[in-house]
């Protein structure tokens, strides 16, 4: 692990640990949050492997029904509240100040406190495993009346509820701080329409966090009161009210878990195509439309309840085609005419777009109530959201990791191991999640600890279980890559990829206050690319004579930067 605090050599080990834990450097907090999220990712992955073992064949009884219910509840809760969302925020905490040329994040002590509040929520949620009745076990959306104390008694479910409140509180505060950073800390010259694509995706994401996460905190606080004996959610309308509150958070969070990784993949594609992101203005407009729509679609999770206006939510949900279509157009148009290098980060970014597409298209499918009456709560839904969250966001996350790892640590990750990681993850992901569409259509509901031995069901489930094993191998390959790359460092320098944005105009890792030299002029959303293009125009004739092939692919000489 790389230490970013430079002054630790003269102090004791204990105080250096304290220094890392209590640092108000946004890079240290971001790194801590990223590492903590990664630990939760591995934990959630182990839960998934246990579930897949149980489901490998019908009537396995590898774990009890009660344990299985805890596993899927905690797997979903861990991945959503403790891995994907906080990992997206960790990227924001680390990268947004750098991308906008700021020396620090806004309200760093609040960000530090929020990190610890979130982490304590995560730990409290997991402590449920140690209680007599076991961990939370009424699903990650904990519908009432199932989640009340009559139907799900025990301290584990209480710990789950409190854990979610704390985790969401921490994430809400961080969202607010990211928003304040973007509003107040942009370097001179960085107008809103010159912010990098990734920063825009984080801005839109933070807007949704601030707008929707408080509703989750409210819903969970009311649920906790209900569990303590207050009558909050009464009868049919109480059940519907809870679902409305939960999904008013629960759908925007899907986009909070998507936008930052979309931004990461977009940066990776632009940098590796050596061309600025196409259609910036339309992309920004589409992100804002995306965010507005995504806060108006929540009841498409409730088509089968009879308690909502299905046509309205089918309309808003299907309308998401427009902003999503714009993204794909921009991605392809960025590639066309570029000069493309297929680095590992690029493979993951392309994987992100193409696999997320399966999740997105299946999302349009289930936005139709008639189709959703069949698909709802079946394995088609499980397949759909794993294609968005795993085949999408996790691939975007890895694209970002391979891209920014050199910035954070000063060393590149190994390309060979990276490609192996990519290929294994690609195979494992599709082996695991593609068969789920078919099983769902054949009638397999989600969240069942056992399934009937209908023809073909055992085979498809076995294939999924094998795929989960391949995913585990891929993740192990990634961890090996991290260890190898940090042990035998391949020094990256300031700007190993010919980056477009300001984080590549400072040392790797950046100094305590990010920039020691004057910032380059901020002339667009890709200021470093502008510099290179202007330099190329100055010695125009010479540059056009560069022979084809791999010549000229080296890093930009930093002397070019004023």
């Amino acid at each position, binding site marked *: 692990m790389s230490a970013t605090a430079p002054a630790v050599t003269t102090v004791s080990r204990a105080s250096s640990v304290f220094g890392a834990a209590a640092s108000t450097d946004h890079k240290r907090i971001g790194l801590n949050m990223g590492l903590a999220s990664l630990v939760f990712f591995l934990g959630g992955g182990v839960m998934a492997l246990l579930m897949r073992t149980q489901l490998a064949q019908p009537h396995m009884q590898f774990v009890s029904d*009660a344990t299985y*219910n805890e596993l899927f509840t905690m797997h979903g809760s861990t991945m959503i509240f403790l891995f994907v969302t906080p990992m997206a925020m960790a990227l924001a905490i680390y990268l947004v100040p750098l991308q906008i040329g700021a020396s620090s994040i806004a309200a760093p002590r609040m960000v530090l406190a929020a990190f610890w509040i979130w982490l304590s929520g995560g730990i409290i949620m997991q402590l449920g495993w140690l209680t007599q009745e076991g961990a939370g076990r*009424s699903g990650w959306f904990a*519908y009432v*009346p*199932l989640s009340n104390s009559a*139907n*799900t008694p025990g301290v584990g479910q209480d710990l789950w509820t409190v854990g979610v409140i704390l985790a969401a509180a921490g994430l809400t505060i961080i969202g607010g701080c990211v928003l304040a950073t973007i509003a107040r800390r942009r370097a001179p010259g960085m107008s809103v329409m010159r912010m990098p694509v990734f920063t825009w995706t984080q801005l839109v994401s933070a807007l949704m966090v601030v707008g929707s996460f408080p509703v989750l905190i409210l819903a969970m606080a009311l649920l906790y009161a209900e569990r303590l004996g207050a009558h909050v959610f*009464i009868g*049919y309308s109480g*059940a519907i009210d809870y679902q409305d509150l939960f999904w008013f958070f629960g759908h925007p969070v899907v986009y909070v878990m998507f936008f930052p990784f979309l931004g990461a993949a977009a940066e990776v594609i632009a940098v590796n*195509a*050596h*061309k600025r992101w*196409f*259609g*910036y203005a*339309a992309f920004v407009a589409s992100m804002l439309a995306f965010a507005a729509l995504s806060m108006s679609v929540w009841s498409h999770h409730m088509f*089968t309840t009879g308690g909502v206006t299905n046509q309205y939510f*089918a309309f808003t949900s299907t309308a998401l*085609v*427009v902003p999503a*279509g*714009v993204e*794909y*157009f921009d*991605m*392809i148009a960025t*590639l*066309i*005419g*570029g*000069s*493309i*290098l297929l680095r590992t980060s690029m493979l993951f970014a*392309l994987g992100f777009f*193409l696999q997320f*597409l399966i999740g997105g298209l299946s999302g*349009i499918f289930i936005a*139709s109530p*008639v*189709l959703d*009456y069949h698909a*709802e*709560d*079946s394995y088609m839904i499980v397949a759909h959201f794993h294609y968005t969250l795993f085949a999408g966001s996790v691939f975007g996350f890895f694209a970002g990791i391979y891209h920014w790892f050199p910035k954070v640590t000063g060393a590149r990750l190994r390309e060979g191991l990276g490609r192996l990681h990519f290929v294994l993850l690609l195979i494992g992901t599709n082996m695991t999640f593609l068969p789920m569409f078919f099983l769902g259509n054949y*009638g397999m*509901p*989600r969240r*069942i600890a*056992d*399934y*009937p031995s209908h023809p073909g069901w055992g085979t498809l489930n076995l294939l999924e279980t094998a795929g989960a094993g391949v995913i585990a191998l891929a993740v192990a390959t990634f961890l090996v890559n991290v260890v190898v790359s940090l042990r035998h460092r391949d020094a990256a320098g300031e700007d190993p990829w010919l980056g477009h944005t300001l984080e590549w105009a400072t040392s790797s890792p950046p100094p305590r206050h990010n920039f020691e030299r004057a910032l380059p002029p901020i002339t667009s959303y890709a200021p470093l690319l502008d510099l290179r293009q202007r330099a*190329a125009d100055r010695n125009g004739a010479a540059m*056009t004579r560069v*022979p*084809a092939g791999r*010549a*000229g*692919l080296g890093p930009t000489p930093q002397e070019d930067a004023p």
Partner: protein
Amino acid sequence: MGLGAPTGLVDTRAEYQHVFDIYVPIAIGVFALIVIATLLAVLVYRRRPPERAARWYEHDRLEGGYALLLVATVAFLLYITFTAEHRVDTVAARERPGLVVNVTGSKWEWHFNYPAYGIDLYSGAVGRQDLVVPTGEAIRFRLTSVDVIHAFWIPQLRYKHDLIPGSVQDSTLTFSRRGVFAGQCAEFCGLLHSDMIFDVRALSPAEFTTWARSQQAAGGGAA
């Protein structure tokens, strides 16, 4: 519309298939188009020196025209969806039912009550009795729950609806052919959720009448 059971009643399976047959080919076509365009772009523009990368990055008319195409796609998909949804939710609800079945969910058992015949059937964690229905008639299922939320799902009909305590909601469904079809609770309802299963046995109307009479003679089914 040429859809539905021969009787003209709304057939949820046919409505699903109708929408499915439009949505899925479009989705597969879009997927193929984007994958091919992306891979082609990568192959064609691979490994050129960075200086050769094009500098254009915007095209207002192209982007605007494309956005209009997307809007038109949304309008088309919604037209298809709303037409089918109207039949499944509204037209079916107006049909005069040939049979009414009260469906009550509880942890972890289905209770099917036939008010016209005084028959009670149970299926779930403690034992399995089939839900017996006639084909070719609209059947009104009156759905409710006594404890937590359950969902009444018959994959063969491509239809499910939630059973929510404190409400009775109607779903009107038609079985167009005879056979035995699996049914299962689709909303997670606690410990033995996966055992909350049943089979539907769809009989011809004459067979159904015979069955119902024999059940009545036997004293209203096992309780």
